């Protein structure tokens, strides 16, 4: 999967990450892969990763049936500079549902409500 995030930064999700880092331990995302793209394109919150200076975590409120239960979907992205084009590219390293924004993460951006 490849998409542009809300700020038009290219983000890539490889098959390896999808199968070995996401589905392998987060079965709830099976059949819900489209939510990853939705979270990157239209997040509710973006926070700096605590352990990786090039890492940002995208959060979006989602609902996983059944039974219906709301949570955030957290998509962890690490940014790298493409050696040849110089373009900043995000790589999805994992994604999973979370009850809340991790307390130790500093919020970079969050959606404003009118």
């Amino acid at each position: 999967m490849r998409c542009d995030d809300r700020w038009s930064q290219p983000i890539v999700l490889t098959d390896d990450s999808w199968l070995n880092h996401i589905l392998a331990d987060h079965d709830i995302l099976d059949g819900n892969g489209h939510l990853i793209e939705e979270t990157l394109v239209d997040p509710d919150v973006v926070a700096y990763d605590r352990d990786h200076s090039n890492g940002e975590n995208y959060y979006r409120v989602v609902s996983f049936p059944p039974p219906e239960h709301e949570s955030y979907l957290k998509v962890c992205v690490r940014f790298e500079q493409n050696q040849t084009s110089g373009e900043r590219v995000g790589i999805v390293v994992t994604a999973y549902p979370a009850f809340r924004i991790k307390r130790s993460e500093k919020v970079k951006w969050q959606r404003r409500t009118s």
Partner: protein
Amino acid sequence: MATQNFLTFQPRVPELEEVDINNVEFRYTKGTDTAFVHWFGRERHAIILDIDDHISVRIDPATQDIVGLQIEAFMEWFVVEHPEFLPVAEQFGVDPMDIEAARRKIEPQRAKVAALGSLLDQVQDSLQSAVA
């Protein structure tokens, strides 16, 4: 928009008797340096709740049971801070070379504290059986 907490119930820690040891899975993914423990197998749906900077519990929203753990920065930070868990890294399938690299990062003082803690636990157990 204020951030939300969607946890609306008190998660339940299962009794040891409820866990079938044959279903317990330890897994480590090097790419994210994360260790997982699934005590009812990997198929149980779970939502994650951070309880520490690096430790999160996996909660099944349908049953409200805690069904596992995930530990981030497992080799980079966790086993270095908690050397008593270094032998567990093998169970998670961590590469022996990475285990050795982590072992070299452990401060001698911390290793002594971990060893002492383990010895004191052993003494406590032995003492209880000796005086029982």
